[in-house]
């Protein structure tokens, strides 16, 4: 049996207190930190956020924690088939989305439900997708957590890793040539950054002048594979330098640092019509997904060290420092949303299923003849065996 030792993928990373985009690597690219563990401001010169923004980020982080906790249980109870929590990485996702404008396109990997929540996706909407019911915008075709919402400029999640990276470059190029004053943000994990599509996407964005923010959540793991079996260079940030992409490394558990870095990145991407890479150093406190149990590949002490760096706690301390923290309001917010999640869950699981006809729609813009024929045969068959197939209660019956 091979010994497991505690790992620290941030070991060699230095801290800086200045917002500085790097195009050339030093010994190791420093990591931007603006709040210390106590939530104290580390810089007197850096730009700040306003109370409303900070509070909205804070609340959304709470919301996602509530949602994640509840849905992990729901999966354990067999009420949904799958779930994937963002625990520990809420600041990296939510504070970066907060720095965007609503018309910016968001393309994610799968662990970025916080971005969607910040944009205003409702609990009902989350539930409809998670339960694949008749109101699921994906029409029950994708596993839970594959959200997407056109109205919120949130691209539907796709499981194959890394594919959204060159797509985000292309999407942003499209925004540019269409004269939109908008950028595309593309989230992905440090594992996905090993895919060939990462290389293609970053390089193309750099060469073709695409206003894309590439945000890598370096959370130390790709399922069981630790970051040190994923790469040996100076993380993902150092690769950005290689592509000639303006790059910043940020403490992903420091909501303010993430917010400011993303705000700066957006400004540069838009003004200079170029990509920016952000590497957010964080930790996947959650299991990879509800199909995973991390205890067999990492030690408890390691998790505990990172528990102590909880981004939500750090932000709360900061809000207290700023005298922006309202304990009662936060309690009320959480209470309200805990109930809302419970309620919405119950409603969603009672919704009817998608009508069987939808099995052949959206393959093409129009249902072609051969698919219509296949559907007709299927419906005849199911009608002949009404007790052998799940009720498609969305049907007229």
């Amino acid at each position: 049996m091979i010994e497991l030792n505690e790992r620290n993928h941030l070991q060699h990373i230095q801290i800086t207190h200045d917002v500085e985009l790097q195009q050339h690597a030093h010994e190791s690219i420093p990591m931007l930190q603006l709040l210390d563990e106590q939530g104290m401001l580390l810089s007197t010169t850096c730009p700040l956020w306003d109370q409303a923004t900070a509070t909205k980020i804070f609340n959304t982080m709470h919301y996602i924690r509530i949602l994640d906790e509840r849905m992990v249980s729901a999966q354990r109870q067999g009420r949904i088939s799958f779930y994937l929590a963002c625990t520990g990485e809420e600041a990296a996702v939510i504070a970066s989305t907060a720095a965007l404008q609503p018309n910016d396109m968001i393309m994610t990997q799968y662990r970025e439900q916080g971005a969607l929540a910040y944009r205003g996706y409702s609990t009902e909407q989350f539930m409809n997708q998670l339960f694949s019911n008749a109101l699921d915008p994906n029409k029950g075709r994708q596993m839970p957590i594959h959200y997407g919402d056109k109205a919120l400029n949130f691209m539907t999640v796709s499981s194959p890793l890394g594919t959204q990276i060159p797509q985000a470059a292309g999407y942003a190029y499209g925004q540019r040539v269409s004269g939109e004053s908008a950028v595309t943000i593309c989230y992905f994990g440090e594992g996905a950054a090993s895919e060939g599509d990462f290389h293609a996407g970053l390089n193309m964005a750099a060469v073709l002048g695409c206003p894309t923010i590439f945000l890598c959540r370096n959370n130390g793991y790709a399922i069981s594979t630790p970051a040190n079996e994923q790469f040996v260079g100076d993380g993902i940030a150092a690769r950005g330098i290689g592509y000639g992409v303006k790059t910043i490394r940020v403490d992903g558990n420091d909501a303010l640092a993430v917010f400011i870095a993303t705000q700066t990145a957006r400004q540069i991407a838009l003004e200079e019509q170029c990509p920016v890479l952000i590497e957010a150093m964080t930790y996947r406190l959650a299991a990879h997904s509800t199909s995973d149990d991390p205890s067999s590949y990492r030690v408890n002490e390691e998790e505990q060290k990172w528990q102590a760096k909880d981004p939500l706690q750090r932000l709360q301390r900061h809000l207290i420092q700023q005298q922006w923290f309202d304990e009662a309001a936060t309690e009320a917010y959480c209470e309200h949303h805990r109930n809302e999640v419970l309620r919405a869950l119950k409603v969603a699981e009672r919704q009817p299923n998608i009508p069987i006809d939808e099995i052949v729609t959206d393959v093409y813009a129009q249902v072609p003849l051969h698919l219509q024929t296949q559907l007709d045969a299927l419906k005849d068959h199911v009608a002949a065996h009404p007790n052998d197939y799940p009720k498609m209660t969305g049907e007229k019956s």
Partner: protein
Amino acid sequence: MIKMNLLQAINNALVTAMAANPKVLVLGEDVGHFGGVFRATSDLQAKFGRERCFNTPLTEQGIIGFANGLAAQGCIPVAEIQFADYIFPAFDQIINETAKFRYRSGGQFDCGNLTIRAPYGGGIAGGHYHSQSPEAFFTHIPGIKVVIPRNPYQAKGLLLSAIRDPDPVLFLEPKRIYRASVGDVPEEDYELPLGQADVVQVGTDITLVGWGAQVEVLQDAAEQALKLGISCEIIDLQSLLPWDAELVCASVNKTGRLLINHEAPVTSGFGSEIAATVQERCFLHLESPIQRVCGLDTPYPLIQEKQYMPDALKTLAAIKYSVNY
């Protein structure tokens, strides 16, 4: 009408599409200033600017990934893959992304605006990396369309349709006849319908189905068959996905015999799908086994390509076999 070769017709279709709609963009390796290694994109950059016709870095997975993003955003990308043999690094982006974009999002997002162009096929002394006919792979991917023209007229009309079609289209160009196939092409904008086969020649004794450069091979074989008193009906499929099974089956119900010709290896080539469908739908009308005259189940060879090719002589032999069965 102007006389054009197939390449000129493609170029003309691109010019037409770009002039008609500023959202149409052309991208790929060497497609910019240079105009592509076959010159299909000649002068597009000069005419429409660098932003609308541009070289990409050398990465097929990147080209299609980028183009998927462009299409989802609302642009109308026409992405060139320099040779169909090099489309495989982009296979994941095509099968898992392009083809499933609309379905997975319940119709919220799609890549319907995407057209992928790639020269394909053998007969140019290209060996196995400049000769492949990969169409069959793509016919097993619900969500995309696969279109192949046989001459300049079809090329312009079908490419314009492909670019404007609301679904993603893989447009494969038979490079063997890029310059050899010459014909009258209308100067104006026109479209030919996707999903419909074209009856190239009416006949009574056997149905011959092919596409791309192989249609000429079928015509050649049919001419020789006629001298033996055999009347062939020739169908150019044009669209392989979805394909016009109705027209093919109607023809086979009439002639009672079917031969399919393609360059790709016979095993799991698109001929197998046609044969499987036709034997089912035309079972009681078939007078002889459906023949497949195809490439061998080997990589495409170089020095033996003449022997490898499903040529008119082999086709004729199979016609005779079928008719005498």
